[in-house]
Every structure is written in structure tokens, then in C-alpha cells.
């Protein structure tokens, strides 16, 4: 692999009992690029995500994260919150997981937990209201404000996250992940349930994140218009294995990808239907 990969997944396998969800998958995500992971339902995309972000422990294989400063981190050796805290991998969820009873601003403040914990001297400095803590808190609010402005939610900063429209919640979740200042941002179907206009603004937001923050992005997506528009590299999965990879144009024309998406069964179904009418 000659390209500059921030994330290299090597021979990743994940079994649940007898079911092989991911089978010997290898791919890379390039630094400061947007990599899309696509495939039909049940292809194992979210399982890959859960392995990368530490929610599952893979059966075998390795996932290496190469930071800008030359640090290499084996993700399979970290678990749980350490993936986000130490390896700087942030994620969003397929079904939005905001803190619904907290305001949009509070959601972004929670995301800065680790930085703020250090600044508050593990709570002690904060409890006595030390000046250094006040400065850090103000900086955190400013960072949150910046992100709220970028996702166009500044005027709803003090509204409960659960009260926001669906599209806004999606964008807020991305902003929340970005507030952890990640090196790699993993988005699980960020465009799901969005209308065409909201999808377009999402694409814009992701391209801006790549351009301004230099964050590498790995995303799972079903909305092909988003994938084709913003991805630099596409990895196609089906039944837990990689069936194709390359540029969006290359993948789109791959007969194996077309077969996986349309499915042999479906072709037969169409044939049956046509003959019937």
C-alpha cells in the first residue's frame, strides 16, 4: 500500500457464533480524504464500523491508525472509550444518538469532556472556580458556538436536542463528533432520512470539514448521490467481503457491484414479472 493511509484495515474478520459478518476484509482510508464504505443491506458495513470504533472486538485481523505525528495505534488493542480518547476516532450512529434532554450547546460541551476534565484539574480547579478553568470553559463554549454556526444551528443552541428537526439532529451529531477533535471521523449513514436539499447541505458540510479541519472521513452511505459527489475512494462490500474498490466512477461501472446491488434474485423477479404481463 503506497498511498498515505490514516487507517489500514488488514484481514479483519468478525464472527458472531456461526455467522461470519465480516470475512477477511482489507482496505485503507487515505489521509485527508473521504472514503465511502457501501454495500447492500446486511453486507457487514456497520459491523466493520463497530470494530473500528471499539464497540466490537474483532475475531481476527488488525486495524492500524497512523496519526499525523507518526504515532501508530493498533485499534483492536484499545477498547470502548479509549478509541475516541486516545486514538482520536469519532463516530456517529445510524439511528441518531444525541443526548435528547440536553441542549444543542450542552451536547457539544459533553463532547469536549476529556479536554475539559484536564482543564478543570479533574474537577478540583473547576469546583473552586480557578481562572484557568474559566478560560478553558469559555474556549470550549466558543468552539461549540463555532460548530453551531457552521451547521446553521446557532439560533437553536439553547433548545433541547430532542426538539430539533431530524436533519438538524443529524448535523448536530456530526458537529458533536467533530468537537472531540478527531483524526478520523466515522459516519454511519449520515444522509439516511434526509431530503435532497438536506443531503446537499450535508455533502457541503463534509467537504468543508475535510478542507478546513483536515479530518479524514470514513462513511457508510446508501444515498448514492452523496457517495458519488464527495467520496475520493469507495469500498464496496457484500456478504462480509470486499467485492470492489476504487474511485466512484470506477466502482459505479463495475459489473460485480451492479450485480450485488440489483441482485441475481431480483433480476429473476423482474424477468418473471415481465413475462407475466
Amino acid at each position, binding site marked *: 500500500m503506497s498511498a498515505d493511509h490514516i487507517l489500514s484495515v488488514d484481514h479483519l474478520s468478525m464472527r458472531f457464533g456461526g455467522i461470519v459478518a465480516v470475512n477477511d476484509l482489507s482496505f485503507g482510508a487515505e489521509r485527508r480524504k473521504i472514503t465511502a464504505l457501501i454495500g447492500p443491506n446486511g453486507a457487514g458495513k456497520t459491523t466493520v464500523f463497530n470494530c473500528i470504533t471499539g464497540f466490537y472486538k474483532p475475531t481476527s485481523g488488525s486495524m492500524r491508525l497512523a496519526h499525523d505525528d507518526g504515532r501508530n495505534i493498533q485499534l483492536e488493542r484499545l477498547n470502548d472509550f479509549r478509541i475516541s480518547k486516545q486514538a482520536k476516532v*469519532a463516530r456517529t450512529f445510524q439511528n441518531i*444518538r444525541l*443526548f435528547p*434532554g*440536553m441542549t444543542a450547546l450542552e451536547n457539544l460541551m*459533553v463532547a469536549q469532556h*476529556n479536554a475539559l476534565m484536564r482543564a478543570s484539574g479533574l474537577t478540583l480547579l473547576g469546583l473552586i472556580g480557578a481562572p484557568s478553568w474559566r478560560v478553558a470553559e469559555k474556549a470550549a*463554549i466558543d468552539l461549540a458556538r463555532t460548530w453551531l454556526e457552521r451547521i446553521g444551528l446557532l439560533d437553536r*443552541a439553547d433548545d433541547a436536542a430532542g426538539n430539533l428537526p431530524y436533519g438538524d439532529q443529524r448535523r448536530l451529531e456530526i458537529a458533536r463528533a467533530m468537537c472531540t477533535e478527531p483524526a478520523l471521523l466515522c459516519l454511519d449513514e449520515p444522509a439516511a432520512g434526509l431530503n435532497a436539499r438536506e443531503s446537499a447541505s450535508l455533502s457541503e458540510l463534509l467537504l468543508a470539514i475535510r478542507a478546513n479541519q483536515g479530518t479524514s472521513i470514513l462513511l457508510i452511505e446508501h444515498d448514492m448521490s452523496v457517495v458519488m459527489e464527495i467520496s475520493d475512494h469507495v469500498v464496496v462490500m457484500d456478504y462480509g467481503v470486499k467485492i470492489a474498490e476504487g474511485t466512484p466512477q470506477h466502482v459505479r461501472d463495475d459489473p460485480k457491484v451492479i450485480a450485488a446491488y440489483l441482485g441475481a434474485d431480483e433480476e429473476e423477479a423482474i424477468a418473471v414479472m415481465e413475462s407475466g404481463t
Partner: protein
Amino acid sequence: MQTSRAPGVAFIFKKALISALVALVLFSLMIGVRTEAGSDGQLTYWTRFGDLAMMVATVFGGSIVVELLRQWWGPVGTVRVVPPQVTSALSLGARLVAPVLLIFTFLVPVIFYNERYILDLGILVLTYVMLGWGLNVVVGLAGLLDLGYVAFYAVGAYSYALLATNFGLSFWICLPLAGILAAFWGVLLGFPVLRLRGDYLAIVTLAFGEIIRLVLLNWQSVTGGPNGVTGIPRPTMFGIPLSPGDDGLAAMLRIEFSPTHRIVFLFYLILALALLTNWVTIRLRRLPIGRAWEALREDEVACRALGINTTTTKLTAFATGAMFGGLAGAFFATRQGFISPESFTFHESALVLAIVVLGGMGSQLGVALAALAMIGGFELFRGLDQYRMLVFGMAMVLLMIWRPRGLIGHRAPTVFLERNQAISSDLVKEGHG
């Protein structure tokens, strides 16, 4: 309205009949037949069909009344339009409740100086306010259901009692020690229950509370077993005893000694401790640790994805809550002068939890109001003697129907840019564990 009455009558009667039938089945054995052991131990019984008939008739009539009231009120869930003036007046009133209550509390020993009963009741209420605020950290903020909170109260009380009687340490040295020891036990409890959620967590914490009580009961050589610890020293005002002797506070101030001095001192002591609890909790809520507690209550998985160490977050919640419980326990020991395991039964845990739930989980003012209502109200009903529990239970059921999320159900945000607006209780999660 008149037209819709006609089909309603049949419906009301049908409903009342069903209620009466259920009442007949239930009460026929409970009231209709009375059994008792006779003089030689044989079973004697007699029937009370008159009482039974009266009961069933009451249920029948009551059911009709309830149904009529329901029709008169209209369907449940209709939004009543409240004039904006009324709403703003109400919100102003709500904002004034806390300061007014605080000023009144400060003045209680002045107003009721000669009424020992009121002062004692005030101390009791404030103890439960403090316990409620302490448990609120665990249940209200972090969303971890703790049914064994009394264990930390007991640890605090026994810490002070044993340290003071065995080593002669003063109250002011023992107070922080009691807090630290209780926090330590909070962490000890926290470790095994980290993976548990919901009902399972509740059961294990319940068991923990019982274990502590049973240890206190059976470790006779240290705790005195069921006899408890006696002769616990009374607190001094930073070294100056509140006693009639020459070195006492009264003699130093050249005023006549009165036992009320000590009660007033205890009152302000528990008030200070409770306010400390409140201040720390309010402060913690605005710090990253407090936000992490609330985030944990909202969504644990999301917390982990944001790099929050859920283990330490839960443990700090347990430790903080336990510490306040321990401080309250030390106060309890010094106030009573005598403690025994009997004071630390599950009943106490349930009472404190009821205060937190009734007050509105997470709301400081709500918990204070609930403690006042639960402890003060319970005393108010003392005149009703045997019906006290019944009236009290009914009041709680009614309150839970009208305010299912507690007296103050909404949540105040910890930080805001422009508008500090409360968050509706429908959005705030209760936590899973």
C-alpha cells in the same frame, strides 16, 4: 353536551356495576366474613353483610361520581389555554420559591425559638433534604437507581460514632473522615455494579444496603451489635462546648444557659451541611463531570463514543452521592447521641428515594420541596393516627397522577448562549441503570 349525555348514562351505570362487582368479590372475604381465634384456639367467625353492602354501595356511588367528574372535566390530555399573564406570574412565583424558602429556613430558629417540636422537625426535614440532594446525584443526575443509599448514611454515622467514642476525635475532624469513608464504600459498591443496569442494579444496591446493616448488627465487638453505640459526644462550636459548665458557650457569652442553644446550633449545622451539598451539586453540574453524569443518564453508548470513561464517571457519581450520605450520617449520630442498626433499615432508603422521585429527578428545589412534604406532611397527618398512612399514600398517588415526573419535572440547562430555558420532562431520560 346534553345530547351526548343520553348514551353516557348506560355507560356510567355499566362501569359502576363492574366496579361494584369487583368490590363485592374483593370485600366479601375481607369485610364480609370476619375470622378470629376463639378462647381455646379454635376458629370462630361471624359475618358482617351490612358493612359489606355499605362498602359495595360506596364503590358503586363513587364510581358514578368519578365518571361524572370525568365527563365534566372533559377528555384527559386537552390543552388548557392559560393567559400569558398567569403563566408569567406563575414563573415569577416559581423563581421566588427558592429564595423565600431559604430565607424562611434561616429564620425558623428565630421565629420558633420556644417551640422545641418545630425545631426538631426542622432538623429532621433538613437531614432528609440533605440525603435527598445526595441521592439526587446518583439517581437524578447519573440515572443510576440506588436502593441501598441508607448504607452510606450508616457508614457515616458509625464512622463518627466509633471514631469519637474510641479515639476521642472531635466532630469537626470526624465529619470529613465520615464523608471520605462513605465515599470509599460508595466506590466499593460501584465496582461490582458497573455492568448492571435497571432492575439488576437496583437489586444489588438493595442487597448492599442490607449487608451493611447486617454487618453492623452482627459485628458485636466493634459496633455493639443491636445495642448500638451510646454516649456519642455532642458537637462543639469549633471547640467550645454547648454545655452549662464554666467553659461552655453560654458562660463565655455571659448569657443564661438554655438547652435550646444546642438545638439551634444543630439546626444551623445541618442547614450549612445541606447548603454545602446543594452548592457542590450545582457547581458539579456545570463542570465536565456533572455533564458527563447527565449524558450518561441520557445515552451511555454515545458517551463511550465521545471518549467518556463511563466506569470512572459512574464511580464518581456513586462516591459523591455516598459522601453526602456519610456527612448526613455523621450529623445524625451527633444529634442523636445514640445509634443502632435499627435506624438504617431499607425503609430509610425507600423514603429518600421517594423524596428524589417525588421532587422530580435532578431538580434541587423539587427534592427540597418533596422532603418538606414527605417528612413535614407526615407529621401534619399525625392527628389522623391510624389513617395517616392511608391519607399519605393517597396524596402520593394523586401527586404522581398529576405530576408523573415529580414536582419539578423539567430540567434546567447547565450552560446557555442566549436563553436559559427549561427543558420539558418528556425529552429528559430517566436513565437505564
